[in-house]
């Protein structure tokens, strides 16, 4: 069967080369048939690659241990569900997944635009397929997932052999979210290839109007949605599976996924200025190039082992190839940008600090600064070794004090920016927009201070969170009241219709609100309590209002692992509220142990228990359980915030509802515009009306 996969990859490789060649030659010769054949070859390459990808699924499902990669990440006793996670549990499979997703995106772009943007599309396809060629080549020549097992035969020559069983999937990866976490992350990372390809296509074809921006806006949102979801799932995985009580540790692998997300967020904002004001054209190109580069760089970082990470899962010598590809992609892109600079003149200038434009400017500055800080902290060991010959490192003790102020400043801008008018806001409009949210924020902040919350960052975060939330609700409320008076709908209907008529704007507000909740959740960390105890049966531990008692330790045996489970009772104010079952497991196939944490979660806090192992008693008479207890306030709000961000993004992706029975052009609908064909005039009108 592995030959089928090999065949698929080979075919994809050939078709990809043809597709690139036909597209580029076709556009030069203005030969439509050649261009069309390049398109079809692109789709064909994806189909062939899909055959290879499906073959890998099959090899895992039937546990074909004649294939080296299957042996390395799977075993017979592995539950069927985790065999899916095992497919991308190692280097070879991850890269195959990367490539497949890129092919999928390329195909969707080709089909979506088959009759559009004819001057630009052949270049777009060539760029997308160029990336696809890189990944196909990697899978075919460097980290081939279909490589067969061999062993020296009696005559000394290597001969094929089939292993009796596989070495198993790293038990840390045996978690249900891990089946979808890598695909989500890759859908996000790879998604930035599409805006990149359109940006390159626009520059190559010198079609630098708004077309590429409008075409790629949605694609960027899709990529951003997947990447954000992937990052959240990664956080959940770390929280539940790694047992250290947190969801984010500024580990290089985590940072690798955050960097493209930060740049993508910056782009999604600054693209609005280009659409409405024709400003920041060069800057947007830079952001698109950097976002794609960061996605590639993130993959490089995770896979090359260049920086030391506790959970760098699979490493090999693919780093050099990646670095070369990154240099070619970014170098080519920046050269092109430099060459086409004269087409990207700004049509407007900043007029006031109290303007939407300046809000976006600070937004971009902070996101890019955040990305740079993450990059700097992550790469410091590498750079310091180059420059000073010594490896120097930083950990969360550096990241937190640097990233928290940036985050809080961003939170402030989240509240202020959307309330500012384009060009400049008058003093009157500032008063109208800010009075209520600022007052509400300050009152709540003062109340929290009076109630004893003194942690400066947490207090600032909560105050800002209330301010931003109030400003968002005020926006919905004002819009809905205006709509109600013109349509006679009730307030709830008005909110829904308002949102559906301008999905980008109100979906955006939802995303902002989700972010606010995320920050509330992050701030909970200021009040974390952590303790580690050695417990005998019957012992109790008190943490704040909770008491935890160790009742029993019992054994467990499954084909996949053996475990010992602690049975514990949790009392809150002396009332039994939960039984908890933290567990230690040993996986014979991979010879690794893991902890399965147990936690009780509510909106206020998480009580989180990790059975971390055993130690011998001081008198040598038996063992004591090492129990780690974390009391983590407000963690639930991180997950809720993440879900709202995702929902808001989906709303923003919906097309605007255009007609309605009681449509009134003079009402807020005139402003709830149809983003795609608005001009500057009615864009400005929207804001003056909303603030009127």
């Amino acid at each position: 069967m592995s030959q089928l996969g090999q065949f698929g990859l080979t075919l994809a490789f050939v078709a990809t080369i043809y597709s690139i060649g036909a597209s580029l030659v076709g556009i030069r010769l203005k030969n439509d048939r050649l261009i069309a054949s390049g398109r079809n070859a692109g789709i064909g390459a994806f189909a062939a690659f899909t055959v290879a990808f499906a073959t890998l699924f099959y090899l895992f499902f039937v546990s074909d241990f004649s294939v080296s990669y299957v042996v390395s990440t799977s075993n017979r006793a592995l539950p069927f569900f985790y065999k899916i996670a095992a497919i991308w549990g190692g280097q070879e499979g991850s890269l195959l997944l990367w490539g497949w997703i890129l092919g999928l995106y390329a195909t969707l772009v080709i089909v979506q635009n088959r009759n559009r943007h004819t001057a630009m599309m052949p270049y777009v396809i060539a760029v997308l397929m160029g990336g696809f060629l890189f990944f196909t080549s990697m899978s075919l020549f460097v980290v081939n997932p279909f490589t067969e097992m061999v062993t020296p035969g009696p005559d000394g020559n290597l001969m094929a052999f089939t292993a009796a069983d596989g070495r198993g999937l790293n038990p840390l990866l045996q978690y249900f979210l891990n089946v979808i976490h890598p695909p989500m992350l890759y859908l996000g990372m790879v998604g930035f290839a599409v805006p990149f390809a359109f940006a390159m296509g626009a520059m190559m074809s010198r079609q630098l109007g708004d077309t590429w921006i409008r075409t790629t806006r949605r694609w960027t949102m899709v990529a951003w949605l997947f990447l954000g979801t992937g990052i959240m799932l990664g956080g959940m995985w770390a929280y539940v599976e790694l047992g250290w009580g947190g969801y984010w540790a500024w580990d290089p692998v985590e940072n690798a996924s955050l960097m493209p997300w930060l740049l993508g967020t910056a782009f999604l904002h600054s693209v609005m200025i280009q659409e409405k004001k024709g400003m920041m054209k060069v800057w947007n190109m830079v952001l698109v190039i950097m976002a794609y580069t960061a996605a590639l760089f993130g993959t490089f970082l995770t896979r090359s082992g260049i920086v030391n990470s506790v959970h760098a899962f699979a490493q090999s010598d693919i780093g050099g190839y990646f670095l070369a590809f990154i240099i070619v992609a970014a170098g080519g892109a920046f050269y092109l940008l430099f060459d086409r600079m004269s087409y990207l003149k700004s049509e407007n200038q900043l007029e006031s600090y109290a303007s939407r434009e300046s809000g976006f400017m600070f937004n971009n500055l902070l996101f890019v600064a955040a990305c740079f800080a993450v990059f700097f902290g992550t790469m410091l060991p590498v750079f310091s070794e180059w420059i000073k010959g010594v490896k120097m490192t930083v950990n969360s003790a550096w990241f937190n004090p640097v990233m928290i102020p940036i985050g809080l400043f961003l939170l402030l801008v989240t509240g202020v920016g959307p309330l500012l008018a384009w060009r400049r806001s008058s003093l009157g409009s500032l008063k109208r927009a800010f009075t209520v949210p600022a007052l509400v924020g300050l009152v709540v902040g003062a109340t929290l201070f009076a109630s004893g919350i003194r942690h400066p960052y947490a207090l600032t975060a909560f105050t800002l969170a209330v301010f931003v939330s109030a400003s968002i609700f005020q926006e919905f409320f004002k819009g809905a009241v205006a709509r109600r008076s013109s349509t006679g709908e009730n307030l709830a209907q008005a909110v829904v219709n308002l949102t559906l008529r301008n999905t980008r704007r109100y979906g955006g507000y939802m995303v902002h609100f989700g972010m606010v909740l995320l920050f509330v959740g992050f701030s909970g960390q200021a009040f974390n309590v952590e303790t580690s105890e050695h417990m005998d049966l019957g012992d109790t531990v008190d943490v704040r209002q909770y008491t935890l008692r160790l009742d029993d330790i019992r054994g467990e045996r499954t084909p996949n692992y053996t475990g010992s489970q602690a049975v514990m009772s949790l009392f809150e104010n002396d009332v039994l509220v939960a039984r908890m079952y933290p567990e230690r497991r040993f996986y014979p196939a991979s010879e690794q142990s893991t902890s399965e944490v147990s936690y009780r979660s509510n909106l206020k806090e998480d009580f989180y228990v990790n059975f971390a192992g055993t130690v011998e008693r001081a008198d040598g008479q038996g063992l004591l359980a090492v129990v780690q207890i974390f009391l983590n306030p407000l963690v639930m709000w991180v997950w809720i915030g993440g879900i709202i961000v995702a929902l808001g993004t989906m709303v923003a992706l919906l097309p605007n509802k255009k007609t309605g029975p009681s449509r009134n052009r003079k009402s807020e609908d005139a402003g709830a515009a149809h983003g795609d064909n608005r001009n500057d005039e009615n864009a400005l009108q929207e804001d003056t009306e909303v603030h009127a």
Partner: protein
Amino acid sequence: MPRKQLKFVIGPVIVVLVLVWIATSALNSTLAYFQTVSELYAMETAGELEGKRLRVMGEVVPGTIVRTDEAVKFTIVDLETHQTMDIEYIGNDPVPDTLRDYSEAVVDGAYAGNGVFTGTTLQAKCASKYERELEAGVITQATELNPEGF
């Protein structure tokens, strides 16, 4: 650049300067030297260890891990120079599951002299069973893809 636009440069520049200041001052109080066992000994000889935060890395020597109620002790070795260092881990967090014979340990803490390093945080990474077998030659991966096949 027109004069009018100059004022829009000042704001961002101030923001950037503040951030750089925050980042560098945080750096001074958190930067750690990440070293192999031999590099740490070399620094000791040169008298450069004074007041530095340290992070040392090495492979756990099999059979050296001893757990007591107060501390976990083990020895790490620099695979290139075969110099060893004893680690006494006294951190609050339990020892990670991945700390075992042959795993790669990364310890933050202070060097007390006489080849003993007192660790307050401990990370460990172990190669998968598959990787270890591959390295030891128990299993072999085909370097050439089915010569008779495609």
